[in-house]
């Protein structure tokens, strides 16, 4: 006996019970799910800006940066940057590029020199944690 006979019989009995419209709907859902899954995977790479950790705080102290400054930097990074564009992940640019990027954007985002320092300290600390 053909071993696939049982499976084929099951499929035939299933297809005779499920209406054609439902089969089409399921196929459409499966077809739509694939790109959604791909987009979700792509978006998952971004996430939220990493929270300030104890390691960041320790590293910050070595660089003479207060924990409060890192917290303030994260809050500003998440708030001011999204007024013009979506938030880039801290790994998106090289560490040596970030000072110029923050400097360029600071006027548009109404950042004071201390705000600028805080954002940059947070980004570089978060980057080191990756």
């Amino acid at each position, binding site marked *: 006996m053909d071993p696939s006979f049982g499976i084929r019989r099951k499929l035939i009995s299933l297809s005779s019970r499920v209406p054609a419209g439902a089969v089409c709907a399921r196929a459409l859902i499966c077809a739509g799910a694939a790109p959604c899954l791909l987009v979700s995977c792509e978006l998952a*790479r971004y996430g*939220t800006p990493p929270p300030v950790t104890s390691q960041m705080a320790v590293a910050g102290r070595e660089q003479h940066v207060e924990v409060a400054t890192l917290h303030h930097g994260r809050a500003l990074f998440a708030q001011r940057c*999204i007024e*013009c*564009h*979506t*938030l*880039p992940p801290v790994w998106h640019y090289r560490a040596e590029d970030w000072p110029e990027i923050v400097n360029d954007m600071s*006027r548009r985002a109404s950042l004071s020199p201390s705000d600028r320092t805080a954002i940059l300290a947070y980004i570089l600390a978060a980057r080191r944690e990756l």
Partner: protein
Amino acid sequence: MRKSPLLALSFLILLLPSLSAGVRHFGFIYEAPTSPPGAVEMENFMTWQYATSAERSDQLAFRHEFEFGVTDRFQASIYLADWSYQNERRHSALRYADSAVELIYNLSNPVVDPVGLSIYQEIKGGNRLLEWESKLIAQKNLGPLILAYNATLEAVWEGEHLSGRSGEFQQAIGASYELSPRLSFGVELLHEFLFPNWQDEKKLTNLFVGPNISYRRGNWFATIAALAQATDTEGEPDLQVRFIFGVGL
């Protein structure tokens, strides 16, 4: 020679110091983030409404708005003037419609919080017109994708002694994907429930859907969105195209 004032103005705009933010990714949907404190921005809206029905003619509406970032969470705007040019069958008319004050308070952040929320209040007054508009703005940023939702409740008093009254509940949802920090594109959908004379007897609903594209550079941005009517409501525009140009001052 006639082009020189326009060229000079364009050159001046490009030379303006960049001191503001508040880019709009959508044409018909508000976003939750507010402008940073101290920022001042001028936004100009131009909306073309195309209608084929006998009840309505084409209209070109303009808005000139100044936006001020007051605190990190609070933003105030003044609509200096809403005015329009209507191309009617018998005659064409240019008319001033209203001026308004708009206040937005941000409650949560669309990146670090589960949902970014803002509340919006607008009070509009004009020639025999008073309008009260409240809005809840929700937004979620997922990497380069912005998802936004607006729920709007609007009450209008107009005409002689402001005796005519109408209401509207509006839902809008949109998505915008950033191809680069300068360029984004997306789609927006607008669902309106109209209550003439604050009654729901006629069950008037409109659905509009269409694409948007936004470009920003330096201290300016430009956004264009087009909405086509998916329903068949008489007296409502078949197509609306809105262009917004904003510049930091």
